[in-house]
């Protein structure tokens, strides 16, 4: 039989390898937060103009109305030029004057795609409350799992391991977001938050399904060690894990990422990776940590390496 748990430290290392680069980027550059969390204005315009807009010209246009921190990004989409302008908060009339100026000089029929303004106080409380909500739901998940696994020894551990693996998934997603912001200029906006919430929901659900098999096997397979029991349970539920992952994630999201609108592409890629991580971490993080906990392996971590494989 496949021995997944035997290589548990390899899997931990793989996860760390995936998480650490993103975290390093975050330490160096900070989180690539959008105006949804920092406050400010975002203007998105679609121009169909012969002459390309110059970034410095738009910045000086912003300066003329007293805004000095405008950041302009341009991209082209089906022959049209898309402008993203991020700045500190714009008033409605300031926005109108900018748009009318651009209409005069570039394209009379430019399309105003988006204009978002978020005040600093509201963005601050969004972040705080989001963290609070995740914290409270984590506690609720631990409590619920402890309750529903009460017939198994150390039910509390299952809940904690589920939450640890969930944090692993959050970190994978955040790390991906940080790398994406370096490579593709992604931003952590409200859609990113939605994706993160989705990953959290999926992650706990998947952990419980895998743990359920351990719970079911516990009274039946009394003679083998806990490590073997967990390994056996993982293998038994492996086909289900793969199929569910294929159905929900790969098929649905891949087609959304490939054929869906531009706006959703970033979110779909984050979801793809995050949900994959949700399935991965049930098997390779949550269940192995249960075993590490059962064996109290940390006592061996700082001794000579060969003793750790008892």
């Amino acid at each position: 039989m496949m021995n997944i748990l035997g290589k548990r430290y390899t899997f931990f290392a793989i996860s760390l390898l995936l998480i650490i680069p993103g975290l390093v980027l975050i330490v160096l550059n900070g989180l690539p937060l959008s105006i949804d969390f920092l406050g400010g204005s975002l203007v998105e315009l679609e121009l169909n103009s012969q002459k390309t807009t110059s970034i410095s010209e738009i910045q000086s246009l912003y300066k003329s109305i007293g805004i000095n921190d405008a950041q302009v990004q341009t991209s082209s989409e089906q022959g049209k030029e898309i402008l993203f302008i991020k700045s500190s908060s714009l008033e409605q009339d300031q926005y109108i004057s900018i748009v009318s100026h651009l209409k005069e000089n570039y394209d009379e029929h430019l399309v105003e795609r988006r204009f978002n303004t978020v005040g600093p106080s509201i963005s601050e409380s969004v972040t705080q409350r989001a963290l609070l909500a995740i914290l409270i739901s984590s506690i609720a998940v631990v409590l619920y799992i402890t309750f529903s696994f009460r017939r198994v020894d150390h039910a509390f551990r299952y809940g904690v391991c589920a939450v640890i693996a969930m944090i692993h998934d959050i970190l994978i997603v955040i790390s991906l977001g940080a790398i994406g912001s370096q490579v593709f200029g992604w931003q952590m906006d409200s859609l990113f938050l939605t994706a993160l919430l989705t990953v959290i929901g999926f992650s706990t659900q998947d952990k419980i399904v895998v743990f359920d098999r351990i719970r079911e096997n516990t009274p039946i397979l009394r003679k083998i060690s806990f490590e073997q029991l967990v390994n056996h349970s993982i293998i038994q539920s492996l086909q289900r894990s793969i199929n569910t992952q294929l159905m929900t994630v790969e098929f649905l999201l891949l087609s959304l990422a490939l054929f869906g609108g531009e706006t959703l592409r970033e979110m779909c890629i984050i979801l793809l990776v995050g949900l994959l991580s949700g399935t991965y971490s049930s098997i390779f993080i949550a269940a192995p940590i249960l075993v590490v906990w059962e064996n109290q392996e940390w006592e061996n971590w700082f001794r000579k390496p060969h003793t750790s494989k008892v």
Partner: protein
Amino acid sequence: MHNKWFYKLFLLILICGVILIVFPGFDELKTKFFKRKIEPVLGLDLRGGMQVVLQAPEGYDIDQETLKVASTILENRSNALGVSEVSFQVAGDNYIIGEFPGLENVNEVVDVIKQTGMLEFVDLGDDYFLPGTILRTDYGVSTDSYESEIEFTPSPLAIGQLDIDVDKSITGKTYHTVITGADLDSVSIAPPQSPSEGYIVLFRLKPEATELFADHTKNNTGKLLAIVLDKEVISTPVISQPIENGEGAISGSGENAFTLEDANNLRVTLFYGTLPVSLEIAESRVVGPSLGQESLEKSLLAGLIGFSIVCFFMAIYYRAPGMVAIISIIFFAMINYAIYLLIPITLTLPGVAGFLLGIGSALDANILQFERIKEELRRGLSVGQAIDLGWRRAWPSIRDSNLATIITSVILFWFGSTFGATIVKGFALTLALGVSVSLFSALIITRGILNSLIPLLKDRDKTKWFGI
């Protein structure tokens, strides 16, 4: 056998009901039955429009009642502008969320919101200010109302005549607000006392405010008390004697004397139109309709492609149960949609994400059952036994994993609604619904259909039907 009939009847009624609701047509019947039009409500991110989050200034204690009144007033004002389908809703402790589909009137709407129509009685001590001066009070100074007052006054309730040609200066000192418009109990108009004077607006204060006002007027007899609307001084009467019964009058003097129309406008603004609290725009989002349209059409198409692949895979891999799963998932989606139509739930992009996760959990419930059924079949059980046992083995994991998700989404919903985070709220609502319906569809539809198929699936054909 009684139970089985009951089950079949229930399923039949449910299916008919869902089909009736989901598919277009029968509009008259539906409208008659539900007393409103049954059609999908799309969020602003899907069809374009503006959303604003309004917030009371920092450091204010305001209750739900005050916020509700404010949002009703805002809605009345916007409706008076002829903007259709506006909605203002209280969110959490100190937010109001306004939503405006379409983008034709963005500027007017913003102006209407900025017009607070806030009445204050301000203690000036011995300082006199001309009418029209912008006053800095306990409630801050609103530079917005200052600007919009100069250009034009779009609100039907605005009192244009109160503007006079004084140099509008903002006072440096902050003056104390004794009572506000929220303390008014009733407002009425009285005709001029003499031909040279204008109309008078009479007001009566609420009991608590009466006491406060009585105390103030007693201690400050001979001092000035300014009547201030939207930070602009209307008049600055001298307190000639203590006012203990809570009744008072506002009158303009000289060229500012009120005509009947002025007085009535003021009365309406004060009584119906006074925002009990001044609000500022904390967040505004404008989504162009093209962006929304594009997202919606492409995502629907993409979802359809993805779903076809899922169906294909399910049918090939799980054979007969796979076909049952497809039927079950289609019903799952239709029941969800029917609920969206009935409640009604506004569909937004985060909401669609929640729905997709719901589909995921519905699929998972099916896959869990089928894997267990296959396991039991491999152990040599008959089809009937395997279906029964497979279900019983899969049920605890389906139940616990879905319940955990429901708990999470309830917490997220609470978080989303105690605060203006509509994204989180929309996501949590459709997720909770999706997961609940997925429990139902696993429990009733998949299991029910599989059970009724047992007589048709002969044991010797199990390789053919189950793919083992």
